[in-house]
């Protein structure tokens, strides 16, 4: 039987409240969105197994920043190590999928990560530079003609917003396809590869989490990505 496409979703760092040990976490909203739209979600755990992961999977999702630190007083060394592990692992995963020519989708922090892996930079003081807080809010985005996001969502969809950083200089091959009213990048696609980035959270624009309530349908973004993974697999 023809199998549904396997979609890897990368983890975020997390601390255990029983052993204080480092762990990996994934917010269920990502997994639910992938499974609801025809993918088989799995989370890769180990940097030395990336070859196996690439040969198994039909696509990769780099999710938004997610972390749970059980105590506010977690020492800086512990936090620092946690973020470092994520940066190193996500970069290695992205490079391996990029080289294999397999589809990659970045959401929020994942979209920024892809941009940086391709030589782009970030604006890390978005609120100062754009004068607006992009946190727990909603706004329209203006989608470029001929782009994937425009084909999926039309000219001016409403999206949610949960970020403090934004893309500044676009990485090599990255074409910004949607911008916020303040002018920061909200979506990109790659000029020649199946690589997509979204600064908003489509996994929170579907199912039980319809944020904002007048937002576009997040399922469409996932269905598009998973159908690309499926086509390229066959």
């Amino acid at each position, binding site marked *: 039987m023809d199998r549904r496409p396997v979609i890897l979703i990368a983890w975020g760092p997390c601390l255990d409240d*029983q052993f204080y040990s480092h762990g990996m*976490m994934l917010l269920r909203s990502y997994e639910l969105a992938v*499974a609801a739209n025809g993918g088989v979600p799995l989370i890769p755990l*180990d940097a030395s*197994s990336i070859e*196996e992961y690439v040969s198994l999977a039909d696509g990769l999702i780099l999710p938004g920043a997610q972390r749970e630190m059980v105590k506010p007083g977690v020492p800086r060394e512990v936090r620092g*190590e946690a973020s*470092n592990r994520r940066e190193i692992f996500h970069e290695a995963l992205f490079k391996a999928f990029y080289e294999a020519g397999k589809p990659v989708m970045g959401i929020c922090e994942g979209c920024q990560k892809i941009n940086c892996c391709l030589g782009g930079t970030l604006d890390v*003081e978005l609120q100062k530079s754009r004068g607006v807080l992009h946190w727990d809010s909603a706004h329209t985005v203006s989608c470029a003609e001929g782009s994937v996001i425009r084909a999926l969502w039309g000219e001016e969809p409403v999206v949610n917003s949960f970020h403090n950083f934004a893309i500044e200089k676009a990485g090599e091959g990255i074409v910004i396809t949607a911008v916020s009213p303040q002018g920061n990048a909200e979506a990109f696609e790659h000029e020649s590869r199946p690589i997509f980035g979204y600064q908003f959270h489509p996994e929170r624009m579907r199912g039980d989490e319809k944020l904002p309530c007048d937002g576009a349908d997040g399922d469409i973004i996932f269905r598009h990505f998973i159908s690309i993974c499926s086509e390229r697999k066959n």
Partner: protein
Amino acid sequence: MRPLILISPDERPSSDGRPYYYLRRSYGLAVAAAGGAPLMAADPACFSEYAEICSGLILSDGIKLLSPGRYGRTSEDIPGLSPFELPVSVARDSRELCLCEAFLRAKKPVLGIGRGMHVINVLLGGTLKTAKSDGHPDAMTHMTAVPGSVLRRLMGESFEALCCARQQTDRPGRGLVPSVFGEKGAVMGFEHEELPVFGVQWHPEPLAGDLELYRLNRDKDEARPIPEEEMKASRARAVTKKPDPAFPGDLEAAFSDPGPLFTYFVSLCEGGLHG
């Protein structure tokens, strides 16, 4: 290629109430060190694909109890709590019972650790009882393994291991043979008479590095203010999302020894060992 080993995670609510999957890193590191490629399972509806894709399943431990209703008992089994206060994870029970059944059907290796051991037992018709433990990660227990068992071959006649169980095996399920016992006769490990299926009540994953962290951190409650220079350097790195060179990013060498159980389990999954 290394065999793909599926690990079933714990489920928790985040600080803003959104559910997430959680797994201690030592599981993945132990599987990798033993020669497997670890993957964390996610969707409860994908168990048949998971059993097809992966060569073996590890059911991880967790703080929440397995619901007494799953083995034909009631909340009276857990004294002092009303049915609404039980620290159970019913969603996790459902997900793991289905997942475990899919791997058993495929006759693929399954290893249950702590709570995971109880999932195997309950799936095969066994029952549980509550155990007294404060969940303190310093609780070492003396174990004795039964002659002729696989666990004896791997662990030796007697050994000390970390154990912070809140539930224990009462009646073992169909085909499960208890092969390791604790000081007071509690079942600490079992193996299936025909299938490559094992359950252990202790933590066989290498926790050394994590315990060190625990001891370092258990008394630290106050956040140290971050000096302005460090903040600046951190912002500068964030522009290109480069890792901080001050941290190795993997202190994971402490986990390089997977121990005999993980080594054996991964080779079972590779199809290299039988029995």
